């Protein structure tokens, strides 16, 4: 049941209203404030308290029609009611509404009741009958009315796609139902012009219905809309009194009225309306003339109507303009949903309006959009933080601001990409979960903070053959950590160009830290008589001098962290000079000591370092020693060095070395305990679990570097490796496995790579040049600038580092070239880690909550406030340290400023820390408490719960969301989910919401400021500040005009 119906102007004046029950608090104000002004009119309905409200606009009259009903009811006919009432009301009271010289009494009660009863009844009878033609009186009057109203408002009925479509037909029938019925004698327009609309409705709808229905049966299913129109036209021709267009007629009326009354009609509105109206005058006069003329002429008029404005805007007119506008907004990085909503809302506000003089639809839309954008972006609450703070000061309590935000979108890899875990094992990216520790580039763990997955454009990174790395796939956001290795160079360009002097050209690479891009630059030094440099040498010298002065020079060892996306936009020269690199040795703190323990079990004593090394070497030698599965090592008889070493190692371990000299060529060596004949070596191999299948024991892979891994590798190479001296003077080991034991080669390669060397991919075959037969060999090469550190026994296999080894010690061996190949769309799996976010080859970036917190802090400090920073990011390791640095900097910057850090380390309950911090601040008279929380993904429920708890426990004065200006559609998701989480998990009656936003990286987005709009639209909250750079002063207030301008700029 309908509770309330009101008709008001956009100026807020109620023209007519009717309430069926007592309305406690008017929901209309709330509707206007929360929906219409916020440009959410694209929505369908609005629920306030116990009411559900629906509304429609009549833009040609600036009217709003609002219907309210109990929200528990499902009233399907409300839209129909609104549309019908709108059409009827606008038709009936057109002059009243236009004439603002006096207040009119809108005698609409009876008409409304009739319409309402009619529609409600129809609804009650169900849809079946609903669709049948309604009573249809064949009087001229009826036809005129329908015709008139049709002319007036066929285009007015807004039909946004989301709203059930109410056909003109249906509305016409509705109107006709009441028209025909109660007011036979109403002189229509003449009467209402007199200001006394008739209300002598004598028949009740119940009386009339059955009879009418009977007459109508004959028409059933025959009267289509077209037919009705045909009928209408015929009716029209009969009727000499009425001009065909009620609309224009009424305009003439109004103008006459206006002039008649006070002579001021022409200045009703400021701005465009004046000229509109005078043109309407012309048009009307002309129109009356032209009625006698032929059709050609009137098409001429419609042409003029088009250029001079005055044309009523219809939904159809708007479609192309709005589509264009929507596309434009999306291009500016506005979330697609929001662009759609906005365009719907603008369309609702425009349909039925008249275009201004000489205005195209496009510019009208643009203008209307501008107003809407301005409205949305204008904050509805005060954004004066300082004033809020001084309020809190006067209440002698600290003002608390809580910074929340997401962490960066993980940079992602394709399924199957392997990662080295901190414990030395490997995991595929899709198996990684939050809390897993992967190995960082500095031998410390990186904890996974969050994981994501999705689909996107994928790239394959293909390292060259010589490299130790395997190809991997990642998304275009993936940040490559590259070494840039190009020195500036000089080219003497003596190519004689006509009219030009010969020149020296200096090329260099410069790092642009704003765009994070390396650019190749060049300068020319012309030389020759009369030039700056008389001779070539002088030019060269100048070039060299200049070279030394270049800032931001990107030379060798410059590490460039660049997203693949950007990398691909770099010039070929730059890309060519980029190399991937690997870190040195990897030390596993976790895996250490296992070998030691095994050995101590066997020896019965705590082994010394030399004992461990000896055992490791022996194991290595054994592994490398063919297919032997017995605990013996076969050594060639002339390998004296090895034989001696074995004896020596045996002694070290107090093992007896037993040589089997049966074969002259080959000596079999085994070890037994010196007091007995138990083979200790067998025992060791068994403990390492490698006796049954030869392999590099996994426990050793992650063990101590110097005592275990290097001796092991040496043992392997002593027996099975070859040393090659390359042409450039550097060395490499080739390790090959005679039989097809590729797995061992693979493991040796991993071992070498983890131990600080660079071991290339395993080649699965080797071409014998002599026979040209591909032999089934597996081999790998091991290079590196620390090969001399390997404690090899065999002197000819040792890399010497004496005078003439001409050992190239640059890092060339640890870097390699690579190719990037687009492999199209694919699934990616991403994760985010802590600390410096570099894990061997990859790197991720974070949205830095704490950085923006510090900027805000700096500003507060400048205003003489005492600030306490609560380190509640107890999750991301490094966060507290980061804040500590900030606090130190901030204290150093300001002379008298006081800023303190309140921290309780990691892993504690953030809500508790925040509470303690606030109490501490209260006790120590701090003015402001800034709470730094961990960045979290909006889908991470446990973390969102924790955040909601922090907020509900501490009830901060402001909750500020720190977001990146770069996000597009994601922004909406982030904010809604944060708000939802704050609501769902708070357990409070009136949960808190985000109070404002800080947009970071605003300097990087040019005019793609869509995120600002998306965010304000989603939350309805203002953007407090925008971050425009890296320093403390790079925090600015956002200017609404600027954003609007940027959004609409072509």
């Amino acid at each position, binding site marked *: 049941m309908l509770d309330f119906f*009101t008709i*008001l*102007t*956009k*100026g*807020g*004046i*109620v023209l007519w*209203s009717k309430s069926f029950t007592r309305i406690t608090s008017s929901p*209309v*104000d709330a509707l*206007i*404030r929360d929906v219409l*002004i*916020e440009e959410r009119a694209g929505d369908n309905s609005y629920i306030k308290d116990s009411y559900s409200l629906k509304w429609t606009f009549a833009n040609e009259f*600036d009217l*709003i029609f609002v219907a309210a009903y109990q929200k528990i009811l499902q009233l399907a006919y409300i839209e129909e009611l609104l549309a019908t009432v709108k059409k009827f009301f606008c038709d009936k009271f057109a002059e009243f509404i236009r004439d603002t010289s*006096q*207040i009119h009494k809108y005698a609409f009660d009876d008409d409304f009741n009739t319409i309402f009863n009619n529609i409600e009844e129809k609804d009650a009878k169900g849809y079946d009958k609903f669709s049948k033609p309604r009573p249809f009186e064949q009087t001229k009057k009826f036809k005129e009315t329908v015709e008139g109203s049709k002319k007036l408002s066929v285009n007015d009925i807004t039909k946004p796609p989301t709203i059930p479509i109410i056909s003109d037909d249906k509305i016409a029938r509705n109107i006709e139902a009441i028209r025909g019925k109660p007011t036979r004698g109403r002189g229509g327009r003449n009467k209402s012009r007199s200001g006394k609309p008739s209300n002598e409705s004598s028949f009740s709808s119940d009386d009339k219905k059955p009879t009418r229905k009977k007459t109508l049966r004959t028409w059933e299913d025959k009267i289509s809309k077209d037919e009705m129109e045909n009928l209408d036209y015929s009716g029209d021709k009969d009727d000499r009194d009425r001009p065909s267009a009620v609309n224009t007629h009424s305009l003439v009326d109004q103008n006459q009225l206006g002039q008649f009354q*006070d002579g*001021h009609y022409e*200045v*009703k509105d*400021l*701005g465009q309306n*004046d*000229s509109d109206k*005078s*043109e309407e005058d*012309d*048009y009307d006069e*002309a129109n009356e003339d032209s009625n006698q*003329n032929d059709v*050609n*002429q009137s098409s001429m*008029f419609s042409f*003029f109507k088009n250029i*001079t404005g005055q044309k009523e805007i219809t939904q159809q007119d708007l479609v192309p303009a709005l589509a264009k506008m929507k596309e434009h907004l999306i291009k500016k990085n506005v979330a697609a949903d929001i662009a759609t909503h906005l365009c719907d809302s603008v369309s609702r506000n425009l349909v039925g309006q008249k275009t201004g*003089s000489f205005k195209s639809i496009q510019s009208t839309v643009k203008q209307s959009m501008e107003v809407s954008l301005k*409205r*949305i972006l*204008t904050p*509805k609450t*005060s954004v*004066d933080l*300082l*004033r809020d703070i*001084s309020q809190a000061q006067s209440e002698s309590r600290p003002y608390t601001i809580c910074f929340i935000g997401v962490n960066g979108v993980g940079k992602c890899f394709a399924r199957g990409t392997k990662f080295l875990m901190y414990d030395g094992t490997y995991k595929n990216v899709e198996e990684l979960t939050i809390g897993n520790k992967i190995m960082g580039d500095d031998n410390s763990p990186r904890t996974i903070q969050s994981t994501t997955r999705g689909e996107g454009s994928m790239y394959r990174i293909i390292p060259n053959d010589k490299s130790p790395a395997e190809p991997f796939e990642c998304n275009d956001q993936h940040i490559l950590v590259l070494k840039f290795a190009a020195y500036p160079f000089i080219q003497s360009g003596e190519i004689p160009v006509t009219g030009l002097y010969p020149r020296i050209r200096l090329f260099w690479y410069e790092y642009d830290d704003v765009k994070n891009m390396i650019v190749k630059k060049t300068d020319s030094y012309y030389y020759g008589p009369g030039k700056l440099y008389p001779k070539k040498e002088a030019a060269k010298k100048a070039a060299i001098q200049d070279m030394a002065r270049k800032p931001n020079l990107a030379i060798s060892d410059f590490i460039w962290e660049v997203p693949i996306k950007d990398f691909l936009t770099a010039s070929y020269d730059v890309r060519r000079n980029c190399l991937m690199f690997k870190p040195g040795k990897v030390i596993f703190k976790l895996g250490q000591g296992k070998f030691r323990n095994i050995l101590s079990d066997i020896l019965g004593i705590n082994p010394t370092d030399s004992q461990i090394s000896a055992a490791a070497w022996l194991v290595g030698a054994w592994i490398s020693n063919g297919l032997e599965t017995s605990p013996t090592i076969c050594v060639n008889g002339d390998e004296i060095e090895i034989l001696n070493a074995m004896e020596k190692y045996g002694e070290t371990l107090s093992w007896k070395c037993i040589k089997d000299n049966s074969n002259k060529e080959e000596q079999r060596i085994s070890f037994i305990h010196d007091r007995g004949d138990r083979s200790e070596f067998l025992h060791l191999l068994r403990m390492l679990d490698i006796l049954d299948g030869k392999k590099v024991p996994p426990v050793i892979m992650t063990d101590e570097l110097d005592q275990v891994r290097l001796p092991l590798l040496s043992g392997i190479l002593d027996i099975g490796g070859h040393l090659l001296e390359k042409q450039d003077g550097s060395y490499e080991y080739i390790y090959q496995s005679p039989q097809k034991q590729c797995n061992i080669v693979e493991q040796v390669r991993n071992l070498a790579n983890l131990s600080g060397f660079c071991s290339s991919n395993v080649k699965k075959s080797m071409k014998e040049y002599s026979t040209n037969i591909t032999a089934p060999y597996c081999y790998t090469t091991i290079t590196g600038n620390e090969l001399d550190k390997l404690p090899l026994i065999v002197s000819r296999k040792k890399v010497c580092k004496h005078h003439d080894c001409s050992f190239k010690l640059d890092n060339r061996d640890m870097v390699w070239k690579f190719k990037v190949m687009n492999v199209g769309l694919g699934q990616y799996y991403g994760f985010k880690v802590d600390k410096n976010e570099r894990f061997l080859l990859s790197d991720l970036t974070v949205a830095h909550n704490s950085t923006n917190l510090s900027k805000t802090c700096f*500003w507060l400090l400048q*205003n003489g406030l005492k600030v306490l920073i609560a380190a509640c990011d107890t999750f991301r390791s490094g966060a507290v340290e980061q804040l500590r640095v900030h606090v130190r900097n901030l204290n150093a910057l300001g002379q008298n400023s006081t800023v303190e850090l309140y921290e309780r380390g990691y892993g504690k309950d953030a809500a508790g820390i925040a509470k303690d911090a606030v109490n501490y601040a209260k006790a120590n008279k701090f003015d402001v408490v800034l709470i730094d929380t961990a960045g979290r993904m909006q889908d991470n429920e446990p973390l969102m719960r924790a955040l909601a708890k922090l907020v509900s426990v501490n009830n901060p004065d402001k909750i500020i969301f720190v977001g990146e200006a770069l996000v597009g559609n994601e922004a909406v998701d982030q904010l809604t989910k944060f708000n939802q989480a704050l609501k769902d998990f708070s357990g409070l009656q009136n949960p808190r919401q985000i109070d404002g936003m800080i947009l970071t990286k*605003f300097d990087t987005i040019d005019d793609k400021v869509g995120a600002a709009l998306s965010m304000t639209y989603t939350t309805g909250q203002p953007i407090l500040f*925008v971050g425009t750079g890296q320093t403390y002063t790079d*925090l*600015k*207030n*956002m*200017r*609404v*005009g*600027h954003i609007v301008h940027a959004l609409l700029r072509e």
Partner: protein
Amino acid sequence: MEFSTSTWVILTILVTAIISIAFKVLNDRSKKNTFIILGLSDSGKTSLFIKLRYGEQVQTHTSMKENEGYIKLEDDGDPLTKVPIHFVDVPGHEKLRFRFSDFIPITRGIIFIIDSSTCVKNVRSIAEYLYDIFSNKDVIKHHIPTLIACNKSDMITALPPERIQTILENELNQLRNTRTSALDHQDTSITDNVEFLGYENEIFKFEHLENEIRIEKCSVDKNEFKGIKTWVAEVYEGR
């Protein structure tokens, strides 16, 4: 013949268009004869506007659009001014009030309406709005006189105008401090130096402002707004 008819029509339209544009420009831009009614939502701007215009009272809701019209001011049937005066009622909603600055160039005087009964609760919003008005560069440049009308004075909870004045002055004083130390705007290319309201090192007083401020109590509901009418007439006639 036909051609000439259409030519005529074209000419007529063009001429009228030009005249009307010229008229508009002359009428609207060169004269500053408009009075704008400002104030927070729910303070009674639209009611005042309707009362002034029609002498009647109607139910109103939050405005989304300006109401405007020419109003003949009368006092008990005696016209106060010779010609009708253009009034604009600007919506008070936070998101819409920026429109007021569009009207400032044609503004003769500002009527700022305050709900006396909720004044204490809303003092910050009121002061912020007033601050925005007073620091508007056109208001400063043209010394646009402002009437602060304390509406709803008939309510029991209503404060006397003197009290409202002190509250507002205190609040504006605070605001002046916080606003001047706010962060820079992001776009520094547009440098509109916010004028410092009043005198430095002195507590803010309305009389320190260069434009004339009057505070008047009124009650639109009870038809007690003669003060507004006479003020408008004074300002209008005293050109």
